[in-house]
């Protein structure tokens, strides 16, 4: 769909006065739901023993404050019955563990106890190849003033793999996510592409590549498609979806929490734009 957007914007620019305007739209607000952000990330070359889980709630769309959830009990157990406790830090809603032990391809189980309700999820820690190289190409795109950053890595040819790229240029506060599956490049060196006309020499460009599970890949694809900055802005919109993660409310299945319990090995680069 991204390509169509490019074309549409292009046609728009030559043919017509197409435009984007911020408008006021009245919105309803649903009953608040618990959001569990339990993304365990293990940066290559580190111990990965400090991990954070965040609890928050949904709120009205235009609110600028996200309500946090304090006072919960959170722990992760692994297949060898090790228990890793997450203790609320002095940042409200932020729970930290400092003795987590990541092991590739191991199964983990998350338990969150909040306001008398127990939530659980299980997931496997996925590995990731290293970032091979980063390539920058200037003066591309329709108007010729965009910059492209290509991040290369090599897929494992023997397994079905799923990847998540996170690009965070310093000119914006919002990271961009990009999920890939290896179906079209099994075993090859492949790239993740970022292109923008706002990239300028000297800016930081942070790149994170994570290995993710098939189910998390499906989840992130939906999430990315509905988070406005990653999609939209064209008449070819996909229908909005409720994104349901892998965390279960064991007391009342219907009142499911949002968010996901994921475990990924990751590789990170802080690239300085030339």
């Amino acid at each position, binding site marked *: 769909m991204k390509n169509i957007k490019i074309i549409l914007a292009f046609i728009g620019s*030559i*043919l017509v006065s197409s435009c984007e305007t911020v408008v006021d*739209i009245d*919105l309803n607000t649903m009953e608040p739901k618990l959001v569990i952000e339990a993304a365990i990330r293990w940066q290559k070359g580190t111990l990965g023993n400090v991990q954070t889980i965040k609890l928050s709630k949904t*709120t009205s769309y235009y609110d600028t404050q996200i309500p946090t959830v304090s006072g919960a009990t959170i722990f992760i157990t692994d297949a060898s019955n090790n228990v890793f406790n997450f203790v609320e830090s002095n940042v409200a809603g932020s729970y930290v563990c400092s003795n987590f032990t990541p092991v590739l391809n191991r199964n983990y189980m998350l338990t969150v106890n909040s306001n008398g309700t127990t939530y659980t999820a299980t997931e496997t820690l996925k590995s990731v190849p290293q970032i091979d190289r980063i390539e920058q190409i200037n003066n591309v795109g329709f108007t010729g003033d965009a910059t492209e950053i290509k991040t290369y890595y090599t897929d494992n040819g023997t397994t079905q793999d799923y990847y998540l790229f996170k690009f965070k240029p310093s000119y914006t506060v*919002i990271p961009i996510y990009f999920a890939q599956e290896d179906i079209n490049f099994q075993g090859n060196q492949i790239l993740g592409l970022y292109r923008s006309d706002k990239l300028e020499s000297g800016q930081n460009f942070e790149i994170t590549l994570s290995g993710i599970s098939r189910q998390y890949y499906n989840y992130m*694809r939906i999430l990315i498609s509905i988070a406005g900055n990653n999609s939209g802005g064209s008449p070819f919109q996909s229908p909005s979806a409720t994104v349901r993660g892998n965390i*279960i409310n064991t007391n009342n299945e219907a009142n499911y929490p949002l968010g996901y319990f994921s475990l990924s090995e990751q590789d990170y680069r802080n690239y300085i734009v030339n």
Partner: protein
Amino acid sequence: MKSNKITAVLLLLLTIIATGFSQEKVTLSGTITADNSNETIIGANVIIKSIPAYTSTNEYGFYSITIPKGNYKIEISSIGFQTKEINVDLNKNTKLNVSISENSEELQEVIITEKKTTNTQKAEMSVNKLSIATIKKMPVVLGEVDVLKSLLLLPGVANAGEGASGFNVRGGGADQNLILLDEATIFNSSHVFGFFSVFNPDAIKDLKLYKGGIPSRFGGRASSVLDVYQKDGNSKSFHANGGIGLISSRLLLEGPIVKDKGSFIIAGRGSYAHLFLKLSSNKNSAYFYDLNTKLNYKLNKNNSLYVSGYFGRDVFNLAGSFTNIYGNATSNLRWNHLFSDKLFSNLSFIYSDYYYGLQLDFVGFKYDSGIKNYNLKYDFKNYISDKIKLNYGINAIYYDFNPGSISPTTLESGINYRQLDKKYAFEPAIYLEAEQKITDKLELMYGFRYSQFYRLGSSKVNLYQNNEAVTFNNQLKIYEKGIPIATKLYGNNEVIKTYDNLEPRFSASYSIDNNQSIKASYNRMIQYLQLVSNTSSPTPLDVWTPSDSYIKPQIADQVALGYFKNFNDDTYSVEVETFYKTVKNRINYIDGANLIANEALEQVILNGQLRSYGLELMLRKNTGKLNGWVSYTLSRSEQQTPGRTANEIGINNGNWYSSIYDKLHNVAFTGNYNWSNKWSFGANFILQTGQPVTYPNGQYQYQGITIPSFGLRNENRLPTYHHLDISATYIPKPQKKKNWQAEWVFSIYNVYNRQNAASITFKQNNETGANEAVRFSIFGAVPAVSYNFKF
């Protein structure tokens, strides 16, 4: 194959023909043509008031009527032509070819005297005809005369808005329209992602939209049939016409091959914005073009041959790093043969294809997809008496689908070559239909179509546990792709799955008096092909896929009831219709479904249903200096995808919800005012309930980004869509009837600069991170001028 059955039906029919003869009666038959070009006229009326009896010409201009011997005054009339009366002394079977004159003020006053009253007697209902002359007068965006956009002014027809491709008929999807150009299926009707339609208005002779009561000769789509015919070309003398517009220019050449026997037509159209880009040394280009051709040759009085073709492409090229090419091509060969003055036949061999190609050099990726079909049709029209006419025939289509091939574009590219499993299918059908006058007041059209569908190999078919390609994760309450437990290989032409369906069709008209009637109809339509599309309007990338073991054919049933009246000496017509339509096996997609280059579509598809119902009103002023119509449609279109078992939640909790085609109110006005023979003015106004959408009902933070949360689907609406467009046509020398004749068309689309929302996106501001609603609108007020000429 059911060839035995077909033979049996044909034999039966021949018996009817043989016994249908009556001694005292004689047959009057022939062809109606335009006198200046020999162009055959479709749907011209042949009326014998003294009996009274009437008939009309078929798609090839042929008519036949069997009446008692006698001396008659025969009246011949058609839209845009002067009515002609001929006295005939009929004492034996008679061939009468008639040529009639276009209304004298050709470019200018076609509309004024055009006869377009509603035919109240014919059983045919839910049909709209638009003449090219009418379409050309309508103000349009950027001055590009657009056949498809003009349909949106008709009751029961809507689309997703500006820049959106396709159209929705009576709450159905754009994929449910059978679009035929000279009988060849057009799979994608738009240029530039929906801004313009693929039909070059200069090359089009006639078009007819069937919204209901669909005749049995048509099949294969659930909602409607748009039947478009190209011009044959002038077999008297050489002519050219064309136009120069802001976006594209057109040129059409036509003339005799052998005078009065054969003619050719060739018409081309192309956009040229990219030429300006080239001049400014910009390396990008974007353009579209199309080419229409037709040759026809009259071998003798009983045989004619037609060859026609269409080729269109859209091309986008962004500095060589991004290339996107797509379009349709069709060609067909037709042979008209008169077995007798009562039995007309047409044999067609038709090929059509749609190609889509995308090349992304910056990631070294190339994608090609497409669909080809080969269609053989043999249609008969048997004019048994003035009371009964039979239409019957056979039709067989072979499809070749390429769901996509992916290949690397450079040696360094990390992309592996992958050809997605090609799909093949065969769709044969037979049909029989009678148009019968039961009494002076009651006319019936009844018949059936019997269609079969064979999904053929070679193919690799996935097998799943419990035959479920989509699995339901009961713990998380989400649908997931099934994992195949095995695959089965089918050899060349081996049958993978078969469907067959009987499609009854029925319509009736009861004339209250000469000017008013009540009509009712029922039709069942089967659609064996599905357009895999998950967006608000189709995109050129969308692929067609055949029904198979997992994806079932859509079955549509529609009933309609209508009241029709002409009044004030046929100056006005009023048409009122109600309809109720259901479509079974309407596919829906699981959340997050990836539809492009997906080899196992069955893993993301759930079967649902669609229903729509509504009331359509149309008031038309047919004659006079001011003419046009007002239409209003009140309708609903809803869909449901329930869970397959009690445990499953389905889509939208299994509830009925507004489909994206749901437009509660739809008001349209189009009018033309002939001020003088130099100036005429036109105006269009459209107002539609906003498209159903889903707005967020909350937000949360996840991984550093804000995620909107959504409730049930399509519970909100985009703001009401409306715009007013005006045009003025100026003919500098209206008296000039020879050599160079010209006209200027000035127009303003969306006069009051309404910023209609194509979409509203909820997203974070890049600088502040704050959430906001962003409206994307395509056209503000757009002025345009174009210049048309002919000689």
